[in-house]
């Protein structure tokens, strides 16, 4: 646990970025702990080498900075008067458009210019019950059909034919 704690402080210790009290404690630990001392040596080595190696990166081949400067100079010479306005347009253009639409659409609708067509109303279902009571004497006692149908359905005419035979 102590070694884990001190190992995290070794980089700052090498770079002399620890407060004096903590630095003193790390020194004491390094004097007594062989594992942390090895780590300290490796870290010291790494820092030295990074400090020597990394600044060399990019120093060769020679960059073409003169050529880059000529491009920069040309770019600087070009006026950019509309730059701020363009940025404003890009950022707020959509918001302004949406806001305008939100204003215009309700006004147009309320002015009678555009009216919504009334939606078709569906009539409530209606039940038609046909109770056909036979009146003809001949039909008395025979089966009678009762029809129940909703509107729009064709009810077959099954009324019995009138009896043409003479009644005694």
């Amino acid at each position: 646990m102590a070694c884990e704690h001190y190992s995290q402080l070794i980089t700052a210790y090498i770079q002399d970025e620890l407060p004096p009290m903590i630095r003193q404690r790390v020194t004491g630990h390094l004097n007594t702990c062989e594992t942390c001392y090895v780590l300290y040596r490796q870290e010291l080595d790494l820092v030295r080498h990074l400090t020597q190696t990394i600044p060399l990166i990019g120093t060769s081949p020679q960059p073409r900075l003169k050529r880059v400067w000529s491009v920069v100079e040309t770019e600087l010479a070009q006026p950019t008067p509309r730059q701020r306005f363009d940025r404003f347009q890009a950022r707020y253009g959509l918001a302004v458009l949406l806001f305008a639409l939100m204003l215009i659409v309700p006004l147009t609708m309320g002015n009678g210019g555009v009216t919504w067509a009334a939606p078709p109303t569906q009539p409530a279902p209606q039940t038609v019950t046909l109770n056909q009571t036979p009146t003809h004497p001949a039909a008395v006692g025979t089966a009678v059909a009762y029809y129940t149908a909703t509107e729009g359905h064709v009810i077959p005419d099954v009324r019995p034919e009138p009896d043409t035979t003479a009644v005694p």
Partner: protein
Amino acid sequence: MTLEPEIIAALITRCIQGDQAGFAALYDYFAPMIYRLCYSLLGNQQDAEDVVQESFVYAFKNISRFDSNRASFKTWLYTITLSRCRNMYRRKRFPLVDLGQLFILNLAAPSTETPEAALVEQGLREAVEKAVLSLSPHLREAVILRYGHGLTYREIADVMDCPQKTAESRVRLAHERLRGLLQPSVPGLLDEWVGI
């Protein structure tokens, strides 16, 4: 050559007034270090030059927005550059392969006295460069700003737009990764180097 902050401030004032010589002086002073930063991060001369150009054009066109109370001009310029380098990673999907080889070829030859020592140093140098390049972008940026440009943790935090503690932990984490990367591939090499 190191420019004093007062001289840089005077040059910035001249730039704001439209003096072309002020821009040229700032460019001459900062361009080599900005190029080195770009090259270290991108590993490609053409990309590095493109980013240098973009960064200076942006910085000079917006130089009136620079606030010396918030950061130094160098930190501001590094922030702009790092942002453009990150854009370049995204555009290019930053190939991590072969860059180590590229860096090795472009480094100056070691100036050691004996051939054996030169060989050891060259081997270690190559190993360290490859290891640095294999770090994730955040860790690589932190290490390069720290050791390649000598920025303080406060400055690294400003440039990378993160808290100072995060900058410190990124450098520490990079150290851990580098130790881990170097030891299995070149056992004992670090110890040899210490003994030179």
